[in-house]
């Protein structure tokens, strides 16, 4: 039974790892400001959306391609989030609560995908929400996908695409 009781981590390296398993935002460099409220830690912290975008439907020539991104263009390393997964914290809906429940199930990294069925040109490869192997089907043909910068996504507890196993 004693092997089940792990010793308190005392070395600084172990402490670093342990601390980084905590509260969302510890790993991330984006500043975190939360205020304690009875029964919960109030998410008084927002982060800005980099953009909102649509993705082409499966019937399109480039299924899953990120299009109509506004106000900024996404880049590889940004993170796509499915519609309605993030809670807005301002009326313009340009900022979202860092306590929004972001997981690997509702988010995907922005990745450059080369579609083998198309000739290589300016529109191939193209950016998708998924991996270099292709778009995540859950992100194909969606409107109003949120695009977060990798720093913002990290502050909410989601690893960027380059860090995913």
């Amino acid at each position, binding site marked *: 039974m004693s092997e089940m009781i792990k*010793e308190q981590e005392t070395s600084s390296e172990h402490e670093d790892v342990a601390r980084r398993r905590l509260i969302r935002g510890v790993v991330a460099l984006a500043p975190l400001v939360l205020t*304690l409220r009875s029964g919960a830690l109030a998410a008084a912290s927002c982060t800005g959306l980099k953009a909102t975008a649509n993705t082409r439907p499966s019937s399109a020539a480039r299924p899953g391609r990120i299009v109509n991104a506004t106000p900024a263009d996404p880049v590889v390393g940004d993170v796509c989030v499915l519609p309605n997964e993030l809670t807005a914290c301002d009326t313009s809906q340009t900022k979202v609560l860092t306590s929004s429940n972001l997981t690997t199930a509702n988010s995907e990294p922005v990745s450059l995908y080369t579609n083998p069925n198309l000739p290589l040109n300016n529109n191939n490869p193209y950016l998708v929400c998924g991996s270099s192997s292709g778009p995540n089907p859950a992100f194909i043909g969606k409107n109003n996908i949120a695009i977060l910068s990798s720093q913002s996504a990290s502050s909410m507890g989601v690893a960027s695409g380059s860090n995913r196993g």
Partner: protein
Amino acid sequence: MIVGDLSRRELGKRLAGDGLALQLGPFNLTIRSNLDSFASLAHQLYEPYPLPDAEAISDFHVQISAPRGLRRWVRRQACFGVDGQFPFAPYTVEHAFPALEWGINWCVATRAHHLLLLHSAGVERNGRAILFPASPGHGKSTLCTALVHSGWRLLSDEFGVVRPEDGLLLPLPRLIPLKNESIEVIRKFRPEAIIGPSFLETRKGTVAHVQPPVNSIRRAQEPARPRWFVFPRWVADAPLTLEPIPKSQAFLMVATNAFNYEVLDEIAFRLVTEMVRSCDSYSLIYSDLDEAVSALDELSRTDDV
């Protein structure tokens, strides 16, 4: 003198009259009731609890009584009152006993602001206490019941009562309410445990009250030093894990689980800081009570080395 020294008749007379004075850890209560069914159960389950001295001041004057009017006789109800006020909707008369127990919880949680009140179970052995801060439904009452029937002293199953002057835990060894399947779990775990009747279809499902071991009640004036925070969670069929958690996480989980953290502001901040700094903190996931009790027994022995 204890409740058991009173005859059933005398107990009923006091409840129906000026009130039955009862000492529950750091609090003195006066309980009144005009319900015979309540008096019988109180005589049984409160039997080992001490009566305070005659001149002692009561912290709360509570009652559980039939209302006036039709509901005294038809589809009978019981109303919880404190200091002459009736803050809750009536209960069915069959639920009078749990209603009073919940009402006492409410009194403590909303009024005892000279103390820091953590939402936590607590047990003690060899002068060191484990606190189990936990949200409802995570199994802390069941685990607490198992522990106090396995050699640990009950401090409380609901309130971690912290005295600000010295950070010590004050025992509040009240009846432990078990819910639904937990009742049968404990009956099997410890057949000798004294468990009151099951109250069906309450607002929290089926509820039954476990009388703590007499030793816990007799030592209710003996504070304890907190030594461990264990955040328990019962998960069906899960292998037992007892893992250290970072102190910052422990701080936030303790603070957000306190009844009156915001009321006590800086005092609470200081107390929780001191407690978390001086205690080791663990997450416990378990599915088997015997395993959980053994793991916590072994944890407590690590200090003996």
